[in-house]
């Protein structure tokens, strides 16, 4: 236990035995057999871990496959990653494609690429400008979505939920109109069976049921039922089946 931890890298093709390492880097095709504990794991080639993967920094810019749980402080996916076990991280940034067969638990999640989650996604903050598909519940204290593709979750729940076609704060002027043109060309929208929160603002959203305290429905929404306890406004360009104050 007290021996110094080694670093290891695979740049051709190779197999690394599981264990404790300082840094592990795979730039060719590498497989880690067994459980891995490391400060850092970088996969810029094709990598696979067939045990648990517990690291501080996990960076996948190539393709990475993880057959069991992934536990990390920071996980960045700019390539393609697939995790077959549960994912427990503090921060997740996905600008590539990330597929988690089970659930994801994090404190901060940012998606600008594609995210697929087989179970629930839990975070304190969730920001998406790409697309996602969450089979279970997407829950966070603050949920901000600028749909850049198909954004789907069975349920969305949290304190503050904000779905806007593009971010008016971040992109001013020319860029703003470019974003607007692009996003309407892509037709990004949010779909959910149920959306629940205290403060909800929605644009371009299709949902069966929306429940909350203060609900503002912006343009291009189709909502089956709205139940609110304090206030409700609905934009003219949206359709709402039923609404009731509870």
């Amino acid at each position, binding site marked *: 236990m007290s021996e110094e931890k080694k670093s290891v890298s695979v740049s051709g093709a190779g197999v690394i035995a599981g264990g404790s390492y300082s840094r592990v880097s795979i730039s060719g095709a590498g497989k880690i057999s067994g459980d891995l504990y490391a400060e850092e794991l970088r996969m810029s080639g094709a990598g696979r871990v067939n045990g648990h993967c517990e690291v501080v920094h996990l960076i996948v810019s190539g393709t990475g496959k993880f057959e069991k749980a992934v536990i990390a402080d920071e996980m960045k996916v700019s390539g393609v990653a697939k995790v077959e076990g549960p994912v427990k991280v503090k921060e997740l940034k996905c600008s590539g494609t990330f597929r988690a067969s089970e659930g994801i638990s994090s404190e901060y999640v940012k998606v600008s690429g594609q995210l697929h989650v087989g179970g629930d996604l839990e975070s304190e903050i969730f920001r998406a400008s790409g697309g996602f598909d969450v089979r279970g519940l997407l*829950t966070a204290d603050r949920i901000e979505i600028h749909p850049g593709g198909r954004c789907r979750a069975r349920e969305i729940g*949290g304190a503050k939920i904000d779905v806007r076609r593009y971010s008016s704060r971040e992109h001013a002027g020319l860029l703003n109109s470019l974003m607007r043109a692009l996003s309407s060309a892509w037709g990004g929208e949010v779909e959910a069976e149920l959306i*629940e929160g205290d403060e909800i603002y929605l644009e371009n959203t299709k949902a069966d*049921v929306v429940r909350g305290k203060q609900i503002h429905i912006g343009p291009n929404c189709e909502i089956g039922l709205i139940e609110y306890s304090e206030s409700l406004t609905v934009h003219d360009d949206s359709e709402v089946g039923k609404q009731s104050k509870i």
Partner: protein
Amino acid sequence: MGDEHLISKKEVLEQMGISYGQLYRWKRKGLIPETWFIRRSTFTGQETFFPKDKIVERIGRIKDMKGEHALDDLAEVISEHVNAKLQIAFGKLKQVGWFDEELIRFSGISENERGTLSLRDALRLAVLKKLRRSSRDEEIELASRTLDHVIAKTGMDLIAVEGKALHLFRKQLSGGGISAEISVIVIAVDGLVVDPEMRRIESVDLAAMLQQVKLDLAKLCGPEEAGAELLGTEDKTNGREEHE
């Protein structure tokens, strides 16, 4: 199961005076077990229901514990109980329902020189305590070893995933005029199928048990320094003076 009284989420929020944000936050923190969220389709659309007595009691407890402190502080204290492998003072354990001196000796969990034990052992104790009603000594010992092994291997968070339970089975074997009974301990998620000759003696929902232990412990003591300020003015005035 299924016969419990259910209460809808709307009613919970209204009755307990809490917000969606709070409820979802507590769920994420693991303060409300996943299995309590029962999804049903109703004529007004998808709704979530809870076992009424359990959720009302639990939320009451969470609100109690909160006292005048911010909820986030509380959540932090509770999550640290898991992460920091918190040491719990032996003396404190006497105040919680699942403590049992005899079991401690029995399960080989020993008090260290600081007079404390880890959350891992606390969970183990709680499970054993529940088994004890219906189990023999050697079965408790077997369960204890199984749990210890599993927790050491996969860690606390992974064993206490939703629906994972520890089961005790017994099976009668006979042949040649001799009959014997074997005991089997199994840790599995929902949907475990065993042969019909296995008799289920007891099952313990590990996730629910861990939550219970966390709540009990969070109430009793915080991590030494953090706890002092976070839970410092809690109702237990005499409760927190064991420092070594």
